[in-house]
């Protein structure tokens, strides 16, 4: 039993954090978010480093590493709010890898692994997929229908209508397509969705972690009534709650990432748990961050709002906490006790 990262994994985490602290610093994120632009220079750099293909098979030009490594990068990108289409590309690639035919994989994965293609993953509800992250820039789009079927489309086969979301660190669009457009993904769509949920959960963990870090720094510094406001229990206990929510999300996301590679039978349950915990934590922790920052937290300049907005979109992505728990309840009804674990 060992929850720690390997030396290699720690190294990935360290280099990612150092790189993003510089290249995706708050001023640069704000600049791109305000302009509604992807940070092309940073994306080019991440492509050089092979990030988009970290978890894809080497046969398709990926690095062939595991879901834990992907989670590490997702978390760091979430922490920094880097304005790059990493998450949408990676989750679209995951669906094609898990559920696509050999020909479909051949066609799309090498481009996605190299970052030459940008992917997007949307969920069709009532004829269209709303707020599909990365879709305005994507060359390949995967559309989930009714949660268990999926098709892959070249962007030109779909109708992509850009719609700005509250989170302007990323592009979003409304996507629809004629019924006969694209190709069905005939394989295990659920296996792809579950792995995608893990990546989104990890990004949320990063967002929470950063929100907590900024909040703790602020409430230590900010003084009222002659003392730093962080010494008031109304404030410090809120921070403790933020940590608890974050750690709950972190531990379930880590478990789900591990499960995806080592114990796939438990993945459906683990992925639903992770996304439920991370969606709740993402909303609660970033909302608390605004509250604990007081008036300044409500200003555009304080930068806390970017975290809140990212968390809102990620929390809803592929189903928020409530649908995840509904799914989990179905699993529990079928399997009964969880005590077979470990």
């Amino acid at each position, binding site marked *: 039993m060992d929850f720690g990262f390997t030396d290699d994994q720690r190294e990935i985490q360290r280099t990612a954090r150092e790189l993003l602290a510089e290249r995706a610093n708050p001023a640069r994120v704000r600049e791109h978010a305000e302009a509604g632009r992807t940070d092309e220079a940073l994306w080019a750099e991440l492509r050089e480093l092979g990030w988009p293909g970290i978890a894809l098979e080497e046969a398709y030009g990926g690095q062939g590493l595991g879901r834990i490594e992907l989670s590490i990068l997702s978390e760091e990108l979430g922490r920094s709010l880097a304005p790059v289409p990493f998450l949408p590309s990676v989750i679209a690639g995951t669906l094609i890898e898990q559920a696509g035919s050999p020909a479909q994989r051949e066609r799309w994965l090498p481009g996605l692994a190299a970052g030459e293609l940008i992917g997007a993953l949307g969920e069709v509800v009532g004829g269209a997929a709303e707020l599909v992250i990365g879709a305005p820039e994507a060359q390949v789009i995967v559309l989930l229908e009714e949660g268990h079927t999926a098709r892959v489309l070249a962007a030109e086969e779909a109708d992509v209508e850009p719609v700005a979301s509250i989170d302007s660190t990323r592009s979003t669009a409304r996507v629809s397509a004629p019924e006969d457009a694209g190709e069905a993904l005939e394989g295990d769509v659920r296996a792809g969705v579950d792995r995608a949920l893990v990546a989104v959960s990890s990004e949320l963990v990063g967002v929470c972690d950063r929100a907590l870090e900024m909040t703790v720094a602020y409430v230590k510094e900010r003084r009222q009534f002659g003392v730093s406001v962080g010494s008031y229990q109304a404030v410090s206990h809120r921070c403790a709650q933020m940590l608890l929510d974050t750690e709950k999300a972190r531990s379930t996301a880590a478990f789900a990432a591990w499960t995806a590679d080592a114990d796939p039978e438990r993945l459906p349950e683990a992925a639903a748990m992770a996304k439920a915990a991370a969606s709740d934590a993402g909303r609660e922790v970033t909302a608390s961050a605004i509250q604990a920052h007081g008036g300044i937290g409500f200003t555009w300049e304080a930068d806390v709002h970017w975290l809140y907005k990212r968390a809102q979109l990620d929390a809803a992505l592929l189903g928020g906490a409530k649908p995840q728990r509904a799914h989990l309840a179905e699993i*529990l009804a079928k399997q009964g006790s969880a005590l077979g674990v470990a």
Partner: protein
Amino acid sequence: MDLTFSQQETAFRDELRAWLADNPPDPRPLDGGEDAEYAWRRDWQRRLYDGGWAAPHWPTEYGGRGSTQTESAIYFEEIGRARVPMAANILGTLLGGPTLMQWGTPEQKERYLSPILSAEEIWCQGFSEPDAGSDLAALKTRAVKDGDEWVVTGQKVWTSGAQYATWCMLVARTDSETDKHKGLTYFLMNMNQDAVQVRPLRQITGEAEFNELFIEEARIPDENVVGGVGNGWKVALTTLMNERAGLGFALQIRMRQLLDDLIATAVERGLLDDPLYADALAELHVRCESIRLLAWKGLTDSERYGQPGPEGSLVKWLWSDTNQRLTQLAVDIIGPDALTAGTSWSYEQLRARGNTIEGGTTEVLKNIIAERVLGLPRLKVAA
């Protein structure tokens, strides 16, 4: 990251599981009250002792197995899973023994450790006082030197097992002139003296798990000081740090079993098809599993970096809050039976109210997390 047990750990678990299956405790006594229940738990510990399973985390030289922290956690998970009673002298094996191993003289180890393990001598813990709960170092029980003895006067509270105990881990003030932490000394007090009166403390469940101790000039020989005069705070911290080290794993499994029972009932009654119940039960499932994950993660950190970190406070906080939510939801799912006196669900619900108070209130845990994990400034309060 590898969330499986090693071969050695699996072998340990399988050996224990097989032993527990072959050596079940006697059926729980239905009458005879608390004394019969205690005798039953004592008998169970003797059986564990004979099988070499009373305290596997103790070093082999003292009769344990020298188990690793992971094996010790497995031990408590299996104890919980097998639904066997808690050993009668759990405070001795979990708290008293390890404290003596760290601070005791060779003579003290020789004298006390073996009878702890065999449940021949039961131990209790005399820390809290009516005016010293969360603020333990404010305790007032006084010990005054008289020749080669100490004379102790004061009052202790929340002393479980005191009516059966031979020895009490007692922290008393030996110097009232100095700083409140420095004036304390840790003693082993013989409970079999008239100067120590034990009065059961009836709790909201109606039973008396705990007691009050009224101490009126009790005598303790100087050789029963543990860790030196004036060093009582440090010795007490050793005891407190061991408090949840293993027990948490048993409690966490017990809660898992309660939740499994509750889910089974909900399925039976078709309540899992109701989205409100489904949501609440799934949330409890997420919480239960994250407690387990966080507990194991804490153990990994502790094995890697030495001492268990203050992050353990997160596990206790989440566990106690979750157990209260679970037992409250049970009333909605189980129905009137869960509010009927004497049923297990009504007991669990009432008992759970203590969870957020005992072993560190949630409020204190939040302070610990804020100050020691997040590094927030300590609240300045008037002395």
